[in-house]
């Protein structure tokens, strides 16, 4: 459990680390737009190239980035299976004379293609988000978000409080992961079995983990609240910031890269013939 890196900052010094968090968030949003705009594998290919560039310039080991996929592996497999079985294609796959069609399940060539497409898409979304959280400290991430969301203050959205809630949530992830580990071991010691049995049995086995986890999270929250209050936190507007966000030459560079990616994807959608 401890190797789940999502939300865990990877401290090295790199181009991506030094970019302004606001720009990185905008870049991520732009990147997601590009991934969703991609109508075919050309666009996804371009997105993949940009992704590889980002990983290379972040100096985060590829393994650490890949690890973040673990958390959504189930989601990927689940959507893949749904698409594979239920995609409304026309050409049913025939293997050794057997047509792969049973009742409402219909495995088609288009379905397989779409399944691969969707898997690539989710994969890239997760990887891109992981790079953001691996190269940006939760504090600067939330500073960036807060700064980007400032206009919402005019309609009385407590932007600062929301940003703080998010940064604390991110910072608590590793602690809660440790907690899950501890509780699972404790339940195993009492004879709980998490790795055998059908899906229903496994989900049931998780309940005795979730309830203590929830309780401990609430207890932690209360203690943290006390500690924050004791350190003069009042949630007031007079709060100052130690770290100030500043744009550097890097930020226009990645901004342009992002714009180029979106433009490229749109052009590819229009001019390139579909694969398959």
């Amino acid at each position, binding site marked *: 459990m401890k190797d789940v890196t999502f939300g*865990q*900052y990877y*401290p090295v010094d790199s181009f991506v680390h030094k970019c302004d968090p606001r720009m990185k968030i905008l870049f991520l949003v732009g990147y997601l737009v590009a991934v969703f705009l991609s109508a075919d594998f050309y666009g996804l290919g371009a997105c993949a190239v940009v992704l590889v560039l980002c990983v290379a310039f972040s100096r985060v080991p590829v393994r650490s980035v890949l690890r973040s996929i673990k958390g959504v592996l189930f989601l990927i497999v689940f959507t893949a299976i749904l698409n594979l079985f239920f995609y409304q294609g026309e050409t049913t796959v025939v293997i050794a004379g057997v047509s792969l069609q049973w009742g409402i399940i219909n495995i088609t060539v288009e379905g397989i293609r779409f399944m691969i497409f969707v898997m690539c898409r989710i994969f890239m979304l997760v990887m891109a988000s992981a790079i953001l959280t691996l190269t940006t*400290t*939760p*504090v600067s991430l939330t500073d960036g978000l807060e700064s980007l969301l400032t206009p919402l203050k005019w309609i009385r959205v407590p932007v600062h409080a929301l940003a*703080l809630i998010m*940064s*604390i949530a*991110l*910072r608590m992830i*590793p*602690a809660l992961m440790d907690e899950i580990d501890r509780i699972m071991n404790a339940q195993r010691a009492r004879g709980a079995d998490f790795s055998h049995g059908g899906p229903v049995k496994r989900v049931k086995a998780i309940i005795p983990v979730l309830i203590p986890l929830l309780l401990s999270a609430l207890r*932690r929250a209360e*203690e*943290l609240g*006390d*500690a*924050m*209050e*004791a*350190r*003069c*936190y*009042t949630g007031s507007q*007079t*709060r*100052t*910031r*130690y*770290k*100030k966000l500043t744009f550097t030459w890097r930020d226009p560079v990645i901004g342009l890269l992002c714009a180029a990616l979106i433009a490229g994807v749109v052009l590819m959608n229009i001019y390139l013939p579909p694969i398959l």
Partner: protein
Amino acid sequence: MRAVSFENVCFSYGNEEGAFSLNNINLSVEEGEFVAVLGQNGSGKSTLARLCNGLLTPRSGKITVLGMDACDAANTFEIRKNVGVVFQNPDNQTVASIVEDDVAFGPENIGLPREEIGRRIDFALSAVGMEAYRNATPARLSGGQKQRIAIAGVLAVMPKVLILDESTAMLDPRGRKEVMDVVLRLNKEKKMTVLFITHFMEEALLADRAFVMHRGEIVMRGAPREIFSRADELETYSLSLPAVGQICRKLRQKGFPVAECLQPEELAKEIERCAFRQNI
């Protein structure tokens, strides 16, 4: 000036009358003093800490902190600036995932300008000897180091009074020593008032004065050595002497004429002295 004073303070969680968590507490801590508060679990030690900085308000009685009335909500912010509290679990006190950001949290809350916050971080980290970890991730530090960061986070607000609410309870002996050294240095060099809540008797030995709490009341008070000389009374409050003191007692019960001592060095000397005399 008095750092903290309690006059007839009563407090209870919940609403039922009679069941007081703190019952008629009177105490005073002078500025620059190092006071230990001892007691078993549930004796009211932590409640005492929370009353000092307005996290809790008493049912009745008067609490004065550095001349300010702690029961008046208007003073709470000013009091919290002057009374820092370090809690038990370092993991539940850190708000940020980088040491320097976490230490900056307090100064940010009191609205200091950036340059000043930078200076405060330097000051606080050097006070706990953690300058080298400015950009580290607290999750990857040892328990003692994490707790020192928590202390730094409190120091950055530059309080006059430092309250440690069982801050060493979750640490290993080495971590306990680290924290203890830092606190002693702050008390001696920076003249910081320290209220040290603990159930480790060895730690109380280093204090100027100690209070023993039992079921919401202060049942013993005085210099630590004086308190530890009343071992039988301590036992009635489910507290025991420091290990060395216990050994001493056992030796005396067996008729070995060592003087009462509480530190290992003293005991070693005593044994040497007695052994020497018996040989001759």
